[in-house]
């Protein structure tokens, strides 16, 4: 079964900082790597996703960097805001139906 290792477990940055969250995966059979954002009391919601035919994808202040040879991908949040404080999950597919989620990173952005 696919393993997805996510780090760090928690992260505190000042407003305007650039938090970086990293993920490593094992199974290279599939081509979809999403990041989900979860606010307290809510369900996870898709933030941004990448296919490994590109090395980077940017949507607003959120960027995914993808290193296919190293089987790693990371999330960068530019100009972070207190409203970005949430738990972030990376995920990788283990089959055409199944996503395996990383252990989550709790991000706190201080004002």
């Amino acid at each position, binding site marked *: 079964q696919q393993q997805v290792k996510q780090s760090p477990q928690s992260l505190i940055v000042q407003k305007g900082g650039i938090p970086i969250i990293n993920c490593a995966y094992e199974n290279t059979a599939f081509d*979809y790597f*999403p990041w989900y954002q*979860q606010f307290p*009391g*809510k*369900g*996870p*919601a*898709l933030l941004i*996703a990448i296919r490994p035919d590109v090395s980077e994808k940017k949507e607003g202040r959120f960027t995914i960097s993808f290193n296919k040879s190293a089987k790693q991908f990371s999330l960068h949040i530019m100009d972070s805001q207190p409203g970005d404080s949430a*738990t972030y*999950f990376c995920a990788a*597919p283990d*089959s*055409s*139906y*199944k*996503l*395996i*989620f990383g*252990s*989550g990173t*709790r991000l706190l952005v201080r004002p």
Partner: protein
Amino acid sequence: DTAVSQTPKYLVTQMGNDKSIKCEQNLGHDTMYWYKQDSKKFLKIMFSYNNKELIINETVPNRFSPKSPDKAHLNLHINSLELGDSAVYFCASRRTSGGANEQFFGPGTRLTVL
């Protein structure tokens, strides 16, 4: 509103009881999931149905029984509840055709077993 909805939002019950959680999606998706999120926020898949057919059945105690009466509904029945069942249970759905991958999550059901 188009969404994935779950009922109830909170469920507090005694050990040994039997309870059910219901999920409905009006997104027209053909695949639905149940996830368990523990106190450390770890999100683990439990079951998945595609067009009412069970396609994922992880290592879950057989006290947990999912049922999908139709593509838009997926329920979870739990027998003989134990303290360790306390968690937040999320339902999710996805459209598998057209290469769509995004899973849409419901708001969660917080189960507390006393």
